[in-house]
C-alpha cells in the first residue's frame, strides 16, 4: 500500500532534523527553491492535491488567487492550520508529533509559491505536546538555516472549535472573537491583517515536499481521478484497531474497515462517519464507495478531514445525533442567528426525545428546523447543524420513530 506521509513513521526519531534529513527531508524545499514560483504552483496543480483540512479545494488553484506583488504590494502570509478540532479527527496530531519537519518544510514551500516571508502554524490549544515538538523543530530548522527566507512562528488556539475554519482562524490570530468572515474576499486576497494569506492544513502542506521531489504526475497517479495522492484517516469508534491509517485517495470503505480490524466484537455495522462528526454517515450499502472527495460527495456526504468514526448496531441514531448536535450547539460561535438559535433548539428537541418525552410532531419539526438552518448561515458549522439530524433521521427513521412515540 502506498504511503507518503506516514512512510517513515516507524523511525523512532523522525521528529529530529537529523533523522528527517537522512530520510530525504528538506530536499523538496531545495527543489522548490530552485524552481520559479509559478512552476511550483503548476507542479502542485498537476498533482491534483486538494485541501485535506476538509474543504477539498485544489491547493494550487488556491495559491493562484493570491494577487501578484505588483497588484498588492506588501507582506503576504502563510498560515498552517493545525487547529484540529473536529470530533473524530486526530491525524494532524500524529502528523505533527511524528514529522514536524515535514510540516515546516511544506509551509516553506507554500511561502515560496506565494512569495511570503512570514509563516505561522496555528496549533490547537489542547495540543500542548505538539506545540512543544513544533517549537523544538522550528528551533532546529532555524539553526540549520532553513528559516532565512521565511520566518516561522507558532500560535495557540484558546479552545474554540470554529477557529479551525480558515477565516475564523484568521480572526483568532488577530486577537478577535472567532467569528467566521464572509467571503468574498477570500483569505488569499484579504487574509491575516488584511493581507493575502494562504491557509493550508497540516496534512496538505505535509504532502508538498513529496510532490516537489517526485513530481506532480507521480502524486496524481497515486490517487483518484480528481483527488491526487493519499489521505490519512484517523479511525475511531467500534473497530478492533483504531488509529491513524494512510491510504491512496479513492480507497474503498470496505478496505479501510478491514485494515482497522473490522467492527469490534464481530458485531454488525450500523454506520460510518467518513470525515469527522459533522459529516452525514455512510451505511452498510455504501461499503464500496470510493473514499476521495468526489466519491464520498456522490454518496451524499463529505470526506472532510478523514476523521472516521465507526458505529456498530448497538448505537442509537437519536443518541448519536444528540451527541453531535450538543457539540455543535456548544461550539456555535453565535454570530449568525440560524446556527446560534437552531443548534440549541435541535439539541433540546433531541434531548427530549432521549428523555422519553418525544411526540410524533417532533420529527417533522426537527426536519423543518434543519431546513431553516442549512444554506441560511455564514459558515459550514451552521450548515452542518441543519444537516446532521436530518441525515440520521433519513437513514435511521425507526430509531427516531421509536423515541417519538414515547411521549
Amino acid at each position: 500500500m502506498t504511503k507518503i506521509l506516514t512512510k517513515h513513521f516507524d523511525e523512532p526519531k523522525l521528529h529530529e532534523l537529523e533523522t528527517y534529513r537522512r530520510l530525504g527531508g528538506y530536499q523538496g524545499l531545495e527543489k522548490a527553491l530552485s524552481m520559479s514560483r509559478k512552476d511550483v504552483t503548476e507542479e502542485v496543480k498537476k498533482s491534483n492535491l486538494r485541501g485535506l483540512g476538509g474543504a477539498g479545494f485544489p491547493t494550487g488553484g488556491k495559491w493562484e488567487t493570491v494577487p501578484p506583488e505588483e497588484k498588492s504590494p506588501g507582506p503576504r502570509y502563510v498560515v498552517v492550520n493545525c487547529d484540529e478540532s473536529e470530533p473524530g479527527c486526530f491525524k494532524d496530531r500524529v502528523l505533527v508529533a511524528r514529522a514536524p519537519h515535514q510540516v515546516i518544510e511544506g509551509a516553506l514551500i507554500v511561502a515560496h509559491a506565494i512569495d511570503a516571508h512570514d509563516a505561522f502554524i496555528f496549533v490547537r490549544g489542547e495540543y500542548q505536546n505538539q506545540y512543544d515538538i513544533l517549537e523544538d523543530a522550528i528551533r532546529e530548522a532555524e539553526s540549520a538555516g532553513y528559516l532565512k527566507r521565511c520566518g516561522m512562528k507558532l500560535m495557540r488556539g484558546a479552545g474554540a472549535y470554529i477557529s479551525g475554519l480558515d477565516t475564523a482562524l484568521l480572526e483568532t490570530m488577530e486577537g478577535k472573537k472567532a467569528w467566521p468572515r464572509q467571503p468574498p474576499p477570500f483569505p488569499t486576497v484579504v487574509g491575516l491583517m488584511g493581507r493575502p494569506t494562504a491557509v493550508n492544513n497540516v496534512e496538505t502542506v505535509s504532502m508538498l515536499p513529496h510532490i516537489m521531489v517526485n513530481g506532480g504526475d507521480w502524486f496524481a497517479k497515486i490517487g483518484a481521478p480528481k483527488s491526487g495522492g493519499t489521505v490519512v484517516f484517523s479511525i475511531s469508534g467500534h473497530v478492533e484497531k483504531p488509529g491513524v491509517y494512510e491510504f491512496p485517495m479513492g480507497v474503498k470503505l470496505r478496505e479501510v474497515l478491514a485494515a482497522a480490524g473490522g467492527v469490534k466484537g464481530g458485531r454488525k455495522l450500523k454506520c460510518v462517519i467518513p470525515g469527522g462528526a459533522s459529516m452525514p454517515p455512510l451505511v452498510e450499502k455504501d461499503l464500496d464507495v470510493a473514499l476521495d472527495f468526489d466519491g464520498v460527495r456522490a454518496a451524499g456526504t463529505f470526506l472532510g478531514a478523514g476523521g472516521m468514526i465507526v458505529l456498530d448496531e448497538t448505537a442509537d441514531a437519536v443518541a448519536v445525533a444528540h451527541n453531535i448536535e450538543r457539540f455543535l450547539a456548544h461550539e456555535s460561535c453565535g454570530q449568525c442567528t440560524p446556527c446560534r438559535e437552531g443548534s440549541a433548539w435541535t439539541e433540546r428537541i433531541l434531548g427530549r426525545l432521549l428523555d422519553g418525552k418525544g411526540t410524533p410532531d417532533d420529527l417533522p419539526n426537527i426536519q423543518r428546523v434543519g431546513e431553516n438552518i442549512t444554506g441560511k448561515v455564514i459558515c459550514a458549522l451552521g450548515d452542518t447543524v441543519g444537516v446532521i439530524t436530518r441525515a440520521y433521521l433519513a437513514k435511521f427513521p425507526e430509531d427516531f420513530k421509536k423515541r417519538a412515540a414515547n411521549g
Partner: protein
Amino acid sequence: MGKLVKYRLNGREVEAEEGRLVIDAAKDAGVEIAHYCYHPALGNPGNCRLCVVEVAGAPKPMPSCRLPVKEGLDVRTDTDAVKRAQAGVLELHLVNHPLDCPVCDQSGECGLQDYYMKVGRYPSRAREDKEHKGKRIEAGPHVMLDQERCILCTRCTRFVDQVTKTHELGIFSRGHQERVEVAPGMTLDNAYSGNVVDICPVGALTDRDFRYKVRVWYLDHADSICPGCSRGCGISVHTSTKRPWHNEGRRVARLKPRWSEVNGHWMCDDGRYGFANLDTDRLGKVLRLRPERVELSWVDMAEELAGRLDGVKVVASGMLSNEDWAAFKALFVDTLTVQDLYFSAEPDQIGAEDDLLRKKEKVPNLKGAEALGLKSGSFDRLAEDLEAGKVRCLYVIERDLAKVWGEARARALLTQVPLLVFQGPNKGALGDLAHYRLPATAYVEEEGCFTNFEGNRRPYRKALEPIGCARPDWEIFKLLQEARS
C-alpha cells in the same frame, strides 16, 4: 456616483449604481427588505440572515446586505422560497425571545413584532424552555439592557466600536448563551450612548429616561432641530398629549435623532436629554409685576411698555430663531437704535466639544445674529455699567443672567435697574425681579429656522401648542414696534 447598470428586481428592470448593495438599491426602487443587522452607517455584518433574496443562478438564498448590484443581476424578493426563508429565520430569532411584549417598552416600534406580522405569521412550535440571561442591567446612566430580548445583531457594539470608539459594549460567550454585555469595569456613559437605543431593532436596549412613561402609539411626532448647540442636528420631537396623565405630565416624551446631512443618524446625549425642564417653571401670562402684580393683555402691555424703551440695553441669546432675530433687529436696532446688545455665548452657554457632533456654543443660532450684522457687547462691560447705575432700562430675552454672573451678583446688579423686562419661556432664577414679564414660546411650540455654525439653514416645525398666552419672540418684538409707530 458610480456607473449606472441595469438589474432585475422582481422581474422589473431597474437602474442602480454598480456595487450598491441590493438592500439599498431595492429600497431606492420602493422595495423594503426586512433586516436587523444592516445599518447604513454601521456596515453589513450579515449575521441576522433576514434580508435574504433569491438570485437567479445562485443555489441558495443570499443576504441582500452583502450582495452588490451588477449588470444583469436578477433578484427576487417576493418568491415563496424567500418568504419561507425569512419566516424560518424569524422563527429562530424568536425561539429564545421572552415574548414579554406587554411589559416591553419597545412594543409598537419593535422589529420583531413588525416583521412577525410582515414576514412571519407562522404557528409557534417552540416547546423547549427558553435560555435565560440578564433582564435588567443598567448599562449606563441612560440605557437599560435586557439580554433576553437581544437578537445579537451587533449594531450597538459596532456603534461603540466604530462611531464613538469607546468600546463599552461587547459580545460575550458564544452560541445560544451569547449575550451583549458591558465590558468589565466600564459603563455605557459616552456622550452619545442614547443612540444605541435608537439603533436597537428590538427591546434589548431601552431608554431609562423614557421607560414605562408612555406607550409609543400614543405619541405624536414633529420634525425639529436640536437647540442644544450650534450643530443644529435634525431631531424628531415625540410628544405625549393624547394621554396627559402619562409621562408624568410632561408633554415632550423623548427626542430622537432624525437623519440629515448635518448629523447623519446620530445625536448626542446632551441634546437628547436636554428637554427635561421644558415644561417646568414656564411663563404663561403677560404680567406687570411692579409696582403691583397686574395681568395685562398683549396689546395693553405693548401700549404701556413701548414708550418706555428709549435707551434700553438688550440681553439676548443664540436661542432666537432667524425670524426672531429679524424682528429683534427691526425693533431694537432699526427703530430704537440701540447700540448695546449682549448675546454672545458666555460660560453659561459654553460646553464640551468633540469631533463627532457636539459644538462648544450650547445655543443653536448665534450665526443668525451674525448674518444680520448684529454684534454682541461684553457682559463684563454690562455688569460694570449696571454697577455704576448707568442702565435705565434692561430688556432680557431668553437668558438666565444668574448663570452668567452667579445668582447673588446678578440679583444685586439687576435690583438697581429702574425698568427690567424679562421675555422668554421660563421664569429662571431671577424672574421675580422683572417689572414686566413676557411669556415666549419654547422652540417646540413655534416654527422657525436656525442657522448652524456651518451656515446651513435648519428649519424646525411646531410640535406643541404654546403654554398660556405665550407668543413667539418675533411676534412680541413686532407688537412693540407697531406700538411705537
